[in-house]
């Protein structure tokens, strides 16, 4: 007769139509504390005037510090809306019809030039190697589909961005094997840690396809050292695996000279078999503060990957309107130079404000030099040096201080008590209020401990 059709995933209701494993799985991870804090924020969001005692969102890495620069550029260069409108060779007609997965050449050239500028001209980017995707989230997932089969693994250094559990694994069926890093060397990746992770995967019969790093790191807020990058590339060559460098925060490094992109390392290599395992992910969501535009890119030194990624990008194209709007902005040398410089400066100042404010309360942070957040150590406040202890503290901070910060355990940190605290998605005034709440909490605690 054949196989029965009704293999239900709901025992109680035999009439319900079945959904896929992807639909019912919880790999999206939205039940973890990282996202639970967001729900608390949604229910009681802080507002300077209307809700000053609400939850301050310090769990979202969004860059609002340079909005004024964007606004003044858009208003100045945009008399009567001309920037938004199609002009010259790219009339409205072309804009409305254009859905070529190659992407607008002018836009790719603008992206390449912007990426070069961020790296101080230390690496060149070929616009024909740029594949556009609707955000870096899509870029990371797409690369994972291309580089790995279901049940293969990517090695990812801990602590890492909690979203990777979802982005790299959910639809792809690929696994993450952590490369454990710890505070003894500021969480830098070591060759020993790489080997250990690789062996762990091998012992479990899992095929490793590549290493994925974020540089500058999320959640550490620190750049990866040049030597570590070179060692990493050597490791990938030896194991014949890929290297993906998510450089989404590259424009948010406080001092440009402190950032080494993997592109710089590859720049001086001629051997194709080395170069072609390297892929860079970038986006305008963090550096340019435009997450709403959904612009991401895969830059690959591998022709096959570029070709495949391009075709697969049909599932995640950047709208022609967006490409058109941003092409002129990103090719405007004067604007981009000024924006990058001022943005870095403002982020550095914010970072110093928060780190110094925390230091006054006896709270140390990892020495950071990039990004929209700091990596704070509250280990000394834990009741027990365990994940539960950390989540208890996180809950207190959320409920009593009304601050939503991200616990290290959701980033798979091997040490407890670390928290990621975002500082760029709010005004300076709000940041000071957050610091004040921390001060009051620490004050109360000191009084309790002293009596």
């Amino acid at each position, binding site marked *: 007769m054949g196989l029965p059709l009704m293999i239900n995933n709901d025992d109680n209701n035999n009439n*319900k139509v079945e959904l896929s494993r992807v639909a019912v799985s919880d790999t999206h991870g939205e039940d973890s504390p990282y996202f639970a804090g967001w729900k608390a924020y949604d229910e009681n969001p802080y507002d300077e005037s209307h809700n000053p005692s609400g939850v301050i969102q310090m769990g979202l890495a969004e860059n609002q510090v340079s909005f004024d620069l964007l606004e003044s550029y858009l208003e100045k260069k945009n008399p009567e809306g001309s920037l938004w409108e199609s002009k010259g060779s790219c009339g409205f007609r072309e804009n409305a019809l254009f859905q070529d997965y190659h992407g607008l050449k002018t836009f790719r050239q603008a992206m390449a030039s912007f990426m070069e500028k961020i790296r101080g001209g230390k690496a060149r980017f070929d616009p024909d190697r740029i594949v556009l995707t609707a955000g870096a989230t899509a870029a990371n997932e797409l690369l994972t589909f291309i580089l790995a089969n279901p049940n293969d693994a990517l090695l990812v250094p801990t602590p890492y961005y909690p979203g990777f559990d979802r982005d790299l694994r959910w639809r792809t069926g690929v696994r993450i094997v952590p490369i454990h890093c710890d505070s003894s060397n500021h969480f830098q990746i070591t060759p020993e840690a790489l080997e250990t992770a690789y062996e762990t995967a091998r012992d479990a019969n899992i095929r490793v396809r590549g290493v994925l790093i974020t540089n500058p790191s999320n959640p550490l807020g620190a750049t990866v050292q040049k030597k570590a990058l070179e060692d990493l590339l050597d490791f990938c060559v030896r194991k014949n695996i890929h290297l993906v460098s998510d450089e989404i925060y590259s424009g948010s490094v406080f001092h440009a000279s402190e950032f080494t992109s993997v592109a710089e390392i590859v720049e001086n290599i001629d051997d194709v*078999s080395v170069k072609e395992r390297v892929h860079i992910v970038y986006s305008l969501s963090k550096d340019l503060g435009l997450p709403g535009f959904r612009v991401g890119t895969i830059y690959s030194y591998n022709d096959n990957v570029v070709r495949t990624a391009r075709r697969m990008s049909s599932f995640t194209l950047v709208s022609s309107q967006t490409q058109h709007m941003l092409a002129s902005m990103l090719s405007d040398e004067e604007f981009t130079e000024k924006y990058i410089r001022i943005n870095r400066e403002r982020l550095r100042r914010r970072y110093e404000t928060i780190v110094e404010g925390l230091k006054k309360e006896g709270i140390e942070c990892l020495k950071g030099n990039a990004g929209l957040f700091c990596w704070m150590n509250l280990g000394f406040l834990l009741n027990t040096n365990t994940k539960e202890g950390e989540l208890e503290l996180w809950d207190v901070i959320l409920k009593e201080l009304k601050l939503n910060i991200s616990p290290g355990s959701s980033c798979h940190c091997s040490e407890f008590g670390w928290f990621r605290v975002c500082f760029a998605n709010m005004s300076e005034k709000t940041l000071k209020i957050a610091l004040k709440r921390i001060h009051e909490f620490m004050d109360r605690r000191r009084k309790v401990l002293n009596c």
Partner: protein
Amino acid sequence: MRLIVPLQGVVQGRGGLFVGSLIPCCLFYFLQLYLKRRRSPPPPDSDSTELPRTSSRSSLFTRGNSIGRVRVSSRAAPLAKPPDSPYYIGLERVKTDPYDRVTNRDGIIQLGLAESTLCFDLLQRWMSDNLMESLMIQSDVDGGFDVSSIAMYQPFEGLLEVRVAFADFMSRIMGGNVSFDPSNMVITAGGTPAVEVLAFCLADHGNAFLIPSPYYPGFDRDIKFRTGIELIPVHCRSSDNFTVTVSALEQSLSQARKRGSKVSGILFSNPSNPVGNILSRETLHAILSFAQEKNIHVISDEIFAGSVYGDKEFVSMAEVAASGDFDKSRVHIIYGLSKDLSLPGFRTGVIYSFHEDVVSAAKKLMRFCSMPVPVQRILISLLSDTRFIEEYMAAHRQRIRDKHFLFVEGLKQLGIPCAESGGGLYCWVDMSSLLTSYSEKGELELFEKLLSVAKINATPGTACYCIEPGWFRCCFTALADEDIPVIMERIKLLAESSTS
């Protein structure tokens, strides 16, 4: 290759044993090579990490001594090859020599892309009057432009206002007797991701959808590539004007079950693509009853719903589902503005589902393909301009109707009939009289002759899994009236040269 290691160590280390070790070493090497060739290809990189020359030089390792070429996943490999469907081949050929009525009158005329440019004048006017306003939203605080209204993170499934705007728009263009709830809707960056995301939610790798054929060739890519879901064509015949029947569905389903395939749902387009017919309320009812009986999903791709020009009324599956006789949670609709509003470049897609868990999963998947906020703002403004939309949709339908008439009439003069159609941007043409042999081979030969001799790109039925040879999809909504006689002349010449 593991056995080589000890021998090679001996060879390297001890000169005296060199000769005595060399011969067995070589024999081993060749034996290994022979065995390796006889085995099926090993997993891409598992062998390379075992090669001894690597481990013996690990301390000297520098760039330039790499092992071998790094590979991509096996699921990506098919994508690296050039596409082999005539659908894509035809599209590529046009790019090499595109027709232009002024600068390249001998170029290849594109009839393979379902796009409409018939109402661009109206859209252009709207955009130039309204685009800036819809984007440059004023700040409450100082009245200057507030970039945060378009720059910041917003829910990936789309702002409530854009979902409300789409719900309203869809209801109006689908006859006004169906309403859409914005909270059952997710907005995405195109019809392509809409179909893929829905497929990911409804079926597992290796499961299958039944799909009435002929069907849109793009579904092969959109559905199968990354999900691994199979598409099982349910053949429809010209005698039924290519309308699917329940008996055909039954037959396909039972054949699938005998093969051990698990069918998760039925996917179809309405108005259908490539035929262009509109499914009647009765047919929709029958499909839904069948799905209910077999406990499977129904996905109705209604992306051409607003491009209806015939006398037959369009009815959405959502309307039939809401009629109360069915378990609605198995019904899902795909929509987008690429066809009805001629905005494929904007990347607009809608997933509408009556199943709250599907909506919930689809929402989360939107992070991989969400619609940019500035585009949402433009669409909120555009779709809520009811007066413009009414004017536009009326002109859109009328102009397709007029063009359709001219095109079909032109073919009729040549003795070439078309299937009956009432929707879509194309017609389904019976060119079997031009075939040298009534077969797939004959059809593909004609396709090639059309491309290289007549210089016309029309999509052959084979690319659409049509079981009867000789049918071609011709899209006519990007043509000017004066292009039509040119096309007919070329076809006439081709027909005459075939018979002479």
